[in-house]
């Protein structure tokens, strides 16, 4: 390659004639062919020639220059400022970093050429393309089909194709070829009858700008010509936008396993040896126990289990422990949560301040947990989530079974992003495209290791991902995510259940629903009572009529209130903000009554069978055409594209083929299924690599490729490329089994190393990129909270179902409502509303999903220390922990502080204290008992609370 380029360069250096300003004989400015083209060829030709057209730009001919690139704008304009090419070159953005920039002379020449009218010697045929239906359809899709399309045919009119436009509705054809003035659609638009002014918001359309109307007119005037344009899809011809060189990037080649090496330890050991190091000694048994438990199930072992492994004399105790943990139902709760981060799981829609709750998002959460527990092969897991609706024809099935339901729930993966399209005002095409963009973004960053987001507006700056490929990719989803035929969460409802599900719902829920309705009425009354009592208590002189007026004012939106109403409400707010001790007894009683009713509501809801509603994505078999959107703007359509995967991940000569999955059944495009099958081919360069790298990251703290979400050119290179490939191949060979992958990693010596750092290791392997030790890691938010609950005996370990509600106090502190007094479920089962994340979780880096979270940050801030030391809830748990210790003591050692301390260590830290720690504990307990004036329980509580605050508890070796 270099060699060939060298030749080309030389060629032009010889032939390209230098131009000096003022030296041209004719006095005319420089000319394209003689002066400029050689410069372009030298400095730009690698990417912008006839053969290679990065960004859709060909600078080898004047026609190409005039046509410009994917933005649809010519590369040069009338003036310098209007010339995109000049702006890029002068601004130093082009040629890109690493390529030779233009010389001063070349810049001067280019400037002179453009400002003197960009002359060319050969006549340039102006490329006046006649208008076709594809100039008009995007306009009609955007402005008309919501009322004249598949769902609705107002006036009997359907405008989705030129044929249908001609076919007419009740009042005749929508257009008369050759006569725009006589065409009904032009008349309707120009008289502003369509889209109707008072219904713009109802149908989420905006009026077309004049330029769009002009385009419609011109096309009709030209006789409404229809040309057979095939959508842009991959063909067997070479792709001008992506080169063979681009495909050579390491991560775009299928992984190949090194035949010589057969284990993780060999790969790691060999590299360590090169640096004069070897693996650290094996960690102590108790360390391994705690590490494996927190790693696989996210909680420390129970006392029994710890004792079992601690004292096992079985040589295989460790592998037995790993098997035991992988079989635990808590495994899926731990590892499923990682996947939920990637999917961007949330229990609310987000986007608007009301942040509506997603009632049944939890079904997807349960699906994920179940899949991990059942060790669903990863390829199958992906196929279900990407195309579960195209696997079995549910719509045509006589009887719905569990598999069908599960497949549909799985597609919830594509519905996890922020979605404001159910709101009254935020369901226009740009917002819908945003929702689609988020789904694509999630797939790219979580599964493919690609930053697809970038090429929504322009070709990727670093990776060979042309903008075209983004829109081909978008076309894959068009059958389900159609911005011109949109189902928002308000207007789509999928209720599917097996006969058994249906029966359970029918039997259980109706009486409970009645009870709920009754309770909710009581709740409203109770709220009013509280308010009235607060006012009575705080403002005894206020007229009763004003109190009632206050309640009435609350029903008016706050920004529609008169000043009088505002003032009344504000008095109430002041009364509501009073600290408890200043509130009247009557108001306190009313508050208790309200709390009582609210608890009853929660209880009734818990007893209800989950509804049959599913949050899914399904293909509807009638996709609108997909157009590239220039600069990503919804009203700047470019060429028509068809479905396809990024060209750089293919050999560039294989078309993307999809076919309807149920030819005799429900119509579906089958595009997502084809994509999922392509993605899960064993030789796919990214799928297995990206996933094993993630699993590695969770076990070892850092990915082999550190940029988990970016395997592209700008991503980091793997620290151990051969190991990564070997793992990827092993993973696929072992049937994409995730549990097998855990075994592979955790049974290695590398995983069982000690985390102690020596001077030598820190010097030779400062970042631990060589894996010369295990990293010390802080528990993430879930592991911390779950461990607190577990250790203190406050864990309700019932799995699944609707999320546990949260409550928000006046300080905005969010806490999870217990399932029964003093008991809470695991953190994965709490409600995660985007606007109300439980405070403990948020403080320990529970992320903002935007749209997903590819890697959690780990912060160490004082708010965490404050929370763990001062928060009431944490203290309650410490107290429960102390009581548990007391209950575990037998009569003989009830007074023995040493026995207490030993138990605390075993439960909280899965080990016995060292002599020093025991001694320190005894002294501390004695001191605390004194300071608590002899209250032993309080002393133990403080001691337990301190242990739960200690680094030894929070960090895992």
């Amino acid at each position, binding site marked *: 390659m270099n060699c060939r380029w060298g030749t080309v360069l030389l060629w032009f250096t010889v032939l390209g004639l230098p131009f000096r300003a003022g030296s041209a004989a004719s006095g005319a400015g420089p000319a394209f062919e003689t002066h400029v083209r050689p410069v372009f060829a030298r400095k730009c030709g690698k990417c912008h020639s006839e053969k290679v057209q990065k960004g859709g730009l060909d600078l080898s001919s004047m026609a190409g220059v005039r046509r410009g690139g994917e933005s649809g704008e010519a590369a040069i304009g009338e003036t310098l400022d209007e010339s995109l090419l000049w702006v890029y070159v002068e601004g130093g953005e082009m040629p890109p970093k690493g390529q030779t920039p233009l010389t001063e002379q070349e810049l001067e020449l280019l400037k002179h050429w453009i400002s003197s009218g960009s002359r060319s010697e050969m006549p340039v045929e102006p490329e006046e393309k006649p208008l076709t239906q594809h100039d008009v359809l995007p306009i009609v899709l955007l402005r008309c089909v919501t009322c004249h399309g598949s769902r609705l045919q107002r006036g009997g009119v359907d405008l989705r194709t030129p044929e249908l436009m001609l076919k007419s509705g009740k009042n005749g054809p929508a257009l008369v070829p050759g006569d725009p003035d006589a065409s009904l659609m032009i008349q309707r638009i120009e008289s502003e009858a369509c889209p109707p002014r008072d219904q713009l918001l109802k149908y989420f359309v905006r009026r077309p700008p004049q330029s769009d109307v002009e385009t419609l007119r011109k096309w009709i005037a030209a006789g409404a010509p229809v040309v057979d344009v095939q959508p842009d899809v991959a063909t067997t011809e070479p792709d001008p936008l992506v080169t063979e060189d681009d495909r050579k990037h390491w991560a775009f080649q299928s992984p190949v396993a090194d035949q010589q090496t057969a284990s993780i330890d060999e790969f790691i050991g060999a590299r360590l040896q090169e640096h004069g190091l070897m693996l650290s000694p094996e960690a102590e048994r108790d360390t391994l126990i705690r590490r494996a438990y927190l790693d696989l199930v996210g909680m420390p072992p129970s006392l029994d289990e710890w004792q079992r492994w601690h004292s096992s004399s079985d040589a295989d105790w460790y592998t037995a422990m790993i098997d035991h943990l992988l079989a635990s139902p808590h495994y899926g709760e731990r590892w499923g949560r990682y996947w939920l981060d990637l999917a961007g799981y949330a229990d609310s829609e987000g986007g608007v301040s009301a942040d509506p709750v997603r009632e049944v998002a939890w079904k997807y959460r349960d699906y994920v947990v179940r899949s991990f527990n059942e060790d669903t092969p990863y390829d199958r897991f992906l196929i279900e989530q990407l195309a579960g609706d195209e696997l079995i024809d549910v719509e045509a099935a006589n009887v719905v079974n569990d598999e069908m339901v599960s497949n549909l729930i799985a597609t919830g993966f594509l519905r996890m992003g922020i979605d404001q399209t159910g709101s009254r005002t935020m369901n226009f095409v740009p917002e819908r495209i945003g929702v689609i963009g988020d789904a694509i973004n999630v797939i790219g960053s979580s599964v493919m290791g690609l930053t697809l987001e970038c090429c929504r507006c322009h070709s990727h700056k670093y990776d060979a991902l042309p903008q075209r490929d983004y829109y081909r990719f978008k076309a894959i989803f068009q059958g389900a995510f159609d911005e011109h035929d949109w189902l928002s969460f308000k207007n789509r409802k999928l209720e599917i259940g097996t006969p058994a599900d249906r029966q359970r719902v029918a039997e259980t829920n109706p009486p409970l629903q009645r009870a709920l309705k009754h309770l909710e009425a009581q709740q409203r009354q109770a709220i009013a009572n509280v308010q009235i009592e607060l006012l009575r208590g705080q403002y005894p002189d206020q007229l009763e009529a004003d109190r009632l007026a206050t309640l009435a004012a609350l029903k008016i939106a706050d920004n529609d209130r008169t000043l009088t109403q505002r003032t009344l409400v504000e008095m109430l707010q002041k009364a509501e903000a009073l*600290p408890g001790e200043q509130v009247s007894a009557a108001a306190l009683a009313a508050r208790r009554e309200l709390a009582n009713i609210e608890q009853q509501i929660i209880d009734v809801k818990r007893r209800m069978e989950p509804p049959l509603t599913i949050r899914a994505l399904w293909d509807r078999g009638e996709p609108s055409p997909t157009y590239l959107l220039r600069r990503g703007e919804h009203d700047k359509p470019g060429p028509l594209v068809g479905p396809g995967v990024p060209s750089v991940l293919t050999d560039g000569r294989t078309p993307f083929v999809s076919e309807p999955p149920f030819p005799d059944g429900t119509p579906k495009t089958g595009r997502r299924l084809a994509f999922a099958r392509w993605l899960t081919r064993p030789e796919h360069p990214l799928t297995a690599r990206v996933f094993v790298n993630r699993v590695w990251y969770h076990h070892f703290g850092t990915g082999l490729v550190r940029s988990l979400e970016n395997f592209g050119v700008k991503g980091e290179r793997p620290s151990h490329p051969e190991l990564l490939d070997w793992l990827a191949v092993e993973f696929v060979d072992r049937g994409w089994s995730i549990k097998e992958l855990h075994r592979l990693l955790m049974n290695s010596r590398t995983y069982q190393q000690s985390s102690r750092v020596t001077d030598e290791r820190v010097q030779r392997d400062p970042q631990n990129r060589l894996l010369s030790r295990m990293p010390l890691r802080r528990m993430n938010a879930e592991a911390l909270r779950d461990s607190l609950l577990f250790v203190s005996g406050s864990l309700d370990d019932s799995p699944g179902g609707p999320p546990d509600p949260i409550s928000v106090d006046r300080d905005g502190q969010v806490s999870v409502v217990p399932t029964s007094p003093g008991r809470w479920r695991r953190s994965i089962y709490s409600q995660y509303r985007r606007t109300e994340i439980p405070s403990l979780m948020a403080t320990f880096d529970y992320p903002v999903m935007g749209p997903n979270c590819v890697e959690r940050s780990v912060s160490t801030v004082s708010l965490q220390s404050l929370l763990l030391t001062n928060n009431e809830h944490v203290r309650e748990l410490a107290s429960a922990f102390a009581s548990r210790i007391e209950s575990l003591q037998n009569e003989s050692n009830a007074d023995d502080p040493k026995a207490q301390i030993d138990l605390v260590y075993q439960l909280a830290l899965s080990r016995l204290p060292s002599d020093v720690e025991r001694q320190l504990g005894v002294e501390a307990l004695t001191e605390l008992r004194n300071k608590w004036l002899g209250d032993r329980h309080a002393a133990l509580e403080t001691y337990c609370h301190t242990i739960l605050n200690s680094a030894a508890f929070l960090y895992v070796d």
Partner: protein
Amino acid sequence: MSGPSENRDTRRDFFARTSDGLFGAALTHLLCQDFFDGASVLAAEADAVAHAAPGVFNLKPKQTHHPATATSVIHLFMNGGPSQMDLFDPKPVLNRMDGQPYPGNVEDIGNQGTADIGVMMGGQFKFARHGESGLWMADVLPHTSQMADDICLINSLWTDHPNHDNALYKIHSGRLFMGYPTFGAWTVYGLGSESQNLPAYVVLNDPLGPPKNGTRNWTSGFLPPVYQGTPFRPTGSPILNLKPQFDQPSAVTESARGLLNRLDEIHRKERPHNPDLDARIESYSLAARMQLSAGEALDLSRESRSTLSMYGVGEKLTDSYGRRCLLARRLVERGVRFVQIFMEEQPWDSHADLGPNHRGACERTDKPVAALLADLKERGLLESTLVIWGGEFGRTPTTQKSAAGYSGRDHNMQAFTSWMAGGGIKGGTAYGTTDDFGHAVVENPVSVHDFHATILHLLGLHHQKLFFERAGLEERLTGVKPARVVSEILS
């Protein structure tokens, strides 16, 4: 990470050398403030973690891109959209046409439709020129108008969305959607903190309740949480969990703290070269210091009677806002980088009864705001403190139908007024022009991105150079297309 480079002092090495033993830690702690030129201890909390990983996220003071004229910001956020034509941007033509239909295309006015649009409504208050500069302000701002010569009115701001939610996201984070860092978060990401013992970015909420959009107004979005705003509680202990929420004799607390220190020291000693553990110990000691400092910073009883009365503390209408303005000054004095004051929900959102409602909102805020400016000025703090006043959009020249008839104005994203003062702003200026009705900008438009770029500029940050790499994208406060620093309003 690609914010401004850090002052990478040798504090880290120092830590490494002395980190053995409790004594070492304590010594480090004592010395670092003296030896390292006041390098923030708060900063140290994320410091160690940060150094272990490639992404370095902390609150250490950072170098600016260019010399700053402002080192701290007080943002007086006016939730709901104050009306420009009633407060700062007088429209005689509009006043004359009071009661007549809007002469242009009504669709240009309507946000969601045209059904609710009423007739034109003239300004509700009397305007006069103020100060030597002769800035226009309405008579409901009798105090602010006295500070006119320090104020720069930007009459030509415009935004992209007529809904509160989105416009709030936009004005705070530069984007129309949730999940992006606010400009306060960007500021502390770019500059770090000057304070030893207080959070870098403090939010002062209304005791009556949170503002619309709640905590999302001060989120760090995709930036690490160390950059998010810390709300100070209006009553009780200022920071959540600052004090034990349970009964425990202070002697016990002391013993527990001592025990924790010793346990952690044992733990750390067995695990050398683990900077996370240093950071953790720091975070506990900062937590302890914060208990003292926050209390002191928030204690208004240390202010003189005249200062209190200047802010209107103790007066019925101004007490609440006055306290928060005074607190803002005390926090800035103590090195807090960014202070935001919010009001409950959206007091300026006057769809109904605009005259009385706006008058009411002015009566609460005008005096405290003016006092804040005067007080900062007197203490020489205004030079380095940028004060920003404004909401998320403006209001329409026409009335809107509501339960109370046609007596208020709808949202207007096409034009609104904000003002800035101090920190390198040219006082006594009015920038930008709107049409005869105050409905749209006709001259010198300032986009929200321009507004943010200008604020960053005053703080010594360049909006193009301040970015955060996320999923392969360089994310900026001001988005993809370069914004414009409004240099005409800089002193």
